[in-house]
């Protein structure tokens, strides 16, 4: 597959290739585990395709997270940015919000910092 110029640095980066291979292994593991849970076999082609797709999706998520944080005049990405990544699907954003609330509940120390930020972000 031909890649646009903007992606050539990413494609040619040695460190990224290593990370991508590790990512693929994890993605394959998750895919096979999910197929099992659904009581299905999954063809090797499909497993590879999903792993590749997931990595490309990760690049998009990286770009979006950066843009969202930058838009909020922050250098550091927080959970609200990740939740925004799910804005195209209600179930997804709901799920992300639920998980983020669980994480917040488990980590009361960061809750203080977060209170300031949520007040700023609330419309």
């Amino acid at each position, binding site marked *: 597959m031909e890649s646009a110029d903007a992606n050539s640095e990413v494609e040619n980066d040695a460190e990224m290739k290593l990370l991508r291979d590790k990512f693929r292994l994890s993605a394959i593991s998750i895919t096979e585990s999910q197929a099992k849970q659904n009581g299905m076999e999954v063809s090797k082609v499909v497993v590879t395709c999903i792993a590749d797709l997931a990595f490309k999706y990760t690049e998009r998520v990286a770009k979006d997270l950066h843009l969202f944080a930058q838009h909020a005049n922050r250098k550091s990405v927080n959970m609200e940015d990740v939740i925004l990544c799910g804005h195209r699907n209600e179930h997804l954003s709901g799920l992300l919000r639920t*998980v983020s609330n669980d994480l917040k509940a488990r980590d009361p120390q960061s809750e203080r910092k977060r209170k300031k930020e949520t007040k700023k972000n609330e419309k």
Partner: protein
Amino acid sequence: MMEEVTFECDLIHSILKRFWTLRALERENFEANDAPDSELGVGTSKKNRTTSANGNALKLTCELLRVFITEAVQRAAAIAEAEGASQIEPTHLEIILPQLLLDF
């Protein structure tokens, strides 16, 4: 007891950092060629400070990526099952791909 297989935070963190670093470098090169103006230079260097992510955001991102894969498999599995197949094939994935990409 079902063990949930997921991405390791450290791996995802390394990947995100690498993407952010590479993009910051790209922007530096692009803007260096495009803007000889010193005022613009100050502005762009602010924007070029590499992004970082807090711990919870990373965990949530791992979950997001895991869900992406889970949805792909579950949706394709549903198609395969409806066809009476016992294995998820490329055609099943093809069918669910457009909506998957619209949803994520």
